[in-house]
């Protein structure tokens, strides 16, 4: 057992998989010699050498394309797209290539790769370096989307993603990089498609992802202690595959649900979850599912404005309290 930051967990997760399997290779901008702009991949070059840990030019299409070609022919690449927002410059691979090659080829072509991205707000990086992209990637059949909220999940879910035979977008949250957590020694391998109930509760279910998980937990504390509202908190962890059963099971017990989403309002990942709940748990619900999201705006850079934009503990608490008192 050791305390590890989410940042260091990334490097440990990659190292665990590279040590296990020679076919795992890693590429991205400034990831090797410099150890990544978020310092999440420090030491990998030294440990695995320049043939397996490779710096690339600023050529995101080449990075994601090369990862695919390598995956098709026998490697298991991990590609880094530094800021998640940059997926937009290589989006063809996300929308058109990765998810469709297996299907179009009638199963001939495989695509076992992981794209790691630094996602999310809170660092005052402004509208083009702070976006949450889970909902972007979720729309394409054939791709998986994973977003860990703790160091141990980073390692376990990264390992599961690397070992998964499908393309996985692995969404790391930039604001979680410095956060510490307990991590067991030895190999850690988790399972995709499993949500985690991080806190049990009886009055309502808070469904959260990434940076919103610790905020939902903190709000749940406040709601319990200050308002006597008992919240169950579910960390979705993996949007595709989605552990709908854990979510629906929780809602069946609590009868009320809230999504806590960092993405802007419209067609966030919560919209799918609300739609599933509203369909399959219709008769379980005591009130509408409420989505707590960033407003329908690009993220501002100024610290005061950004703090207003993202769902925070106070807003989560207040929204839940109000809805529960109706």
């Amino acid at each position, binding site marked *: 057992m050791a305390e590890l930051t989410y940042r260091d967990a990334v490097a440990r997760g990659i190292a665990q998989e590279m040590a296990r399997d020679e076919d795992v290779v890693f590429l991205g901008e400034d990831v090797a010699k410099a150890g990544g702009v978020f310092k999440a991949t420090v030491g990998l070059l030294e440990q695995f050498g320049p043939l397996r840990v490779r710096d690339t030019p600023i050529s995101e*299409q*080449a990075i994601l*394309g090369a990862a*695919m070609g390598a995956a098709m022919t026998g490697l298991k690449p991990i590609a880094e797209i530094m800021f998640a927002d940059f997926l937009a410059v290589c989006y063809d*691979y996300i929308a058109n290539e990765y998810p469709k090659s297996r299907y179009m*080829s009638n199963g*001939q*072509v495989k695509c076992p790769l992981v794209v790691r991205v630094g996602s999310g707000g809170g660092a005052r990086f402004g509208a083009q370096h702070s976006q949450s992209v889970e909902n972007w990637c979720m729309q394409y059949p054939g791709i998986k989307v994973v977003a860990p909220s703790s160091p141990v999940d980073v390692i376990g879910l990264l390992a599961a993603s690397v070992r998964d035979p499908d393309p996985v977008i692995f969404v790391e949250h930039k604001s979680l990089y410095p956060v510490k957590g307990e991590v067991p020694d030895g190999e850690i391998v988790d399972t995709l498609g499993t949500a985690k109930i991080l806190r049990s509760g009886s009055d309502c279910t808070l469904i959260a992802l990434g940076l919103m998980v610790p905020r939902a937990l903190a709000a749940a504390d406040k709601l319990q202690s200050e308002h006597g509202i008992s919240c169950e908190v579910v960390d979705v962890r993996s949007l*595709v595959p989605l552990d709908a059963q854990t979510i629906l099971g929780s809602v069946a017990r609590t009868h009320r649900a809230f999504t806590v989403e960092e993405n802007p309002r419209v067609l966030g990942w919560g919209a799918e979850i609300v739609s599933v709940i509203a369909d399959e748990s219709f008769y379980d619900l005591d009130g509408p599912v409420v989505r707590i999201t960033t407003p329908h705006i690009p993220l501002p850079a100024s610290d005061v404005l950004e703090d207003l934009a993202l769902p925070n503990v106070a807003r989560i608490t207040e929204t839940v309290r109000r809805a529960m008192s109706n």
Partner: protein
Amino acid sequence: MRVAFGRVAFGVPVVDSVAEADMAVKSSPKIVESVVPEDDIGEAKRLEIYRLQVLLRESEQRAYDLFLQNLVKGTSHLSLGQEAVAAGCAAAMRPGDLSFCTYRGHAHTLARGVPVEKVLGELMGRDIGLMRGKGGSMHLTSVEHGVMGSYAIIGSHLPIACGAAWRAQYKKQSDVTTCFFGDGTTNIGAFHEALNFAVIWKLPIVFVCENNLYMEYTPIADVTAVPSPAGDRAGAYGLPKIVIDGNDADSVYRTMTPAYDKARRGAGPSLIECLTYRYSGHSRADPAKYRPAGELDRWKQRDPVKLYRERLLGMGFPAGELDAIDAEARRIVDAATEACKASPPPPAEILLTDVYADGGCSWRN
């Protein structure tokens, strides 16, 4: 007997074919020949190249006939007139080498040995098709033949092909990757990224640009800053400019062979521009009225199949042997056509298979 003509035949000076090309392609850029090695094509290879061209011609012609009969439902992009590139490249490849093609990929797919009925069947959306109708004409893929896919988004397969070549380099495997694309593709960003990437990583890949003078309906010269869309960009990646006569399969073969050798010995990628011409429209829907009068006819005078046949005859190959190759190709395509017509449509259950590696399309529990 024809061996006796060998020397003469081998001597067909490349400069002649270049001159011919220059005459035919009046407005096209000057062709710069790459170094031509001492001829080593050999009889068997020549017959193979001829056979391939004839087979491609017959197959594509048949695909066209099948459109007219409304048996090909979706779109389709033929390579009629461009056979020399596919045949010359395939003949220079080794088994295990990989091809990445475009939507205009029937010829490149067939040239690697994929059965004709699987290709025509895919065009027809039948169960016999290479991907049982799930991909369609633009996505022909046969991993067992090294055809790693046909790609329909312009440019996207150039980086993908780099990745396949990277794997070979990393795993010290000896296969070389060929990536085919058109002149129009040189103006999209992915082209640039892939070329730079392949060069700095010294990947075992050969980029083959088939310059057929048009993107869809727009002449490439109208939208390109340089006369040779690929050749004049080679310098931007530290590569030599290579522009060859893409209607002469020998010229293609002779250029590809050293490019493959270079890749295999770890000396990095090549970029080769092959000047050629497509006879039909861009796709099924296109009557190609945008072409100036006479252009098609001029190119047909340098028809790659005709040109190659005449060369073989001139070298002393007996007409009967070539006729037999022609007949065999027709027989194969006829049989394939019948097999396709007899094939049922794909069964409904495959609609939901192979989205994910577990075989299904389930995204939740």
